């Protein structure tokens, strides 16, 4: 009994540490984080699947709060229930608390420093490449038929060229999907016959 309790603690600490690393790798908005989550949690550790990650992102857009916390709570709960979600959430916010407290206490004008500016410009290039890299993987997994292609293109074009807020995209899609489910019935909402590799993985867990 004692042994298993120790194992649980070890696992929770590992989850805390994993999310701590992800917190450090996050620069800018929540999307920069997505590429890291995909690589570290879906691809490498297999705590969640890519489709689940995308589901969480969509939910994170319409639920209150910082997306990183939403993600951490979801992932932690999936892996180890409420203790897991606490470990993951604390993990993702700890680096911020440490780094910001140090900067606030000691480094005035940190953001105006010339080297910081150049380093950030470099990091922005990297964030762009990281997101593009993640997007390629997501397209392969989610744009699988004509309907998904149309949705992807419409959302992409509108999000790039208009100032519509993200929450409205998600709300709109939900309304359309409810109508489509009501009108088209089973042939709309049933998963396609050809199973994608992700759903197989889930079934295996």
């Amino acid at each position, binding site marked *: 009994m004692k042994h298993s309790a120790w194992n649980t603690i070890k696992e929770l600490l590992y989850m805390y540490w994993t999310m701590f690393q992800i917190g450090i790798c996050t620069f800018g908005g929540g999307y920069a984080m997505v590429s890291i989550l995909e690589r570290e949690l879906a691809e490498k550790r297999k705590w969640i699947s890519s489709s689940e990650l995308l589901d969480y992102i969509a939910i994170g857009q319409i639920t209150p709060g910082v997306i990183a916390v939403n993600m951490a709570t979801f992932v932690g709960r999936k892996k180890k229930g409420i203790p897991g979600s606490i470990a993951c959430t604390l993990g993702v*916010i700890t680096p911020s608390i440490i780094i910001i407290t140090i900067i606030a206490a000691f480094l005035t004008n940190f953001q105006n420093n010339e080297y910081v500016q150049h380093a950030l410009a470099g990091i*922005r290039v990297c964030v*762009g490449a990281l997101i593009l890299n993640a997007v390629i993987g997501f397209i392969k997994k989610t744009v699988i038929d004509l309907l998904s292609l149309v949705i992807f293109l419409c959302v992409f074009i509108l*999000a790039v060229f208009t100032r519509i807020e993200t929450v409205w995209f998600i709300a709109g899609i939900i309304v359309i999907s409810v109508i489509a489910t009501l009108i088209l019935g089973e042939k709309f909402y049933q998963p396609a016959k050809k199973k994608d590799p992700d759903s197989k993985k889930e079934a295996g867990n």
Partner: protein
Amino acid sequence: MNLLIMCLEFMKTGLFAVGGGLATIPFLYEMAVRYPWFTSQDVLTYIAIAESTPGPIGINMATYAGYTSFGWFGGILATLSLALPSFVVILIVAGMLDKFRTNRFVLGGFKMLRPASTGLIAAAGFNVILTVFFGVEKITFSMLGRIGEIFTQVNWLAMIMFAVLFAAMRYFRKIHPIFFILASAGLGILLKL
């Protein structure tokens, strides 16, 4: 007592700011007006610092604002208070999802939401790349007519660096992203990007 009010204010922010860290900014301005803890000028600093440091923007801003208000303990409490509401909401939503996983509306909803999420992430990536390459943060339909005027400056150095980084990410899949981030920070300083 003041500390308690601050915690409640950050919980309120966490509960009502929908759509990520940047959505907390209006709430911070409201706090600046209503309480003597920090000024609206300070909020500008919080945004600049939060965007220039590792960690999610909303969390970074909360830590900084809490620190200015009540020291390091205030920073920790403000951050935890901001995170608490979304933590609780997500636990509830996740519980409901487990229950209604096979519900037809949930199945249909996620079927459409997944490619939509991909589209949103792609658009965010597009805007980052636009800023990095051309120094333009956003293009709208109305700007398409004078596209020549908008793309006057091209940052070739950033483009080459982007291509090299991207190729390296595709080729060396085992390398942790933090390595690429650190390398590009170094390159940014070396190349004076």
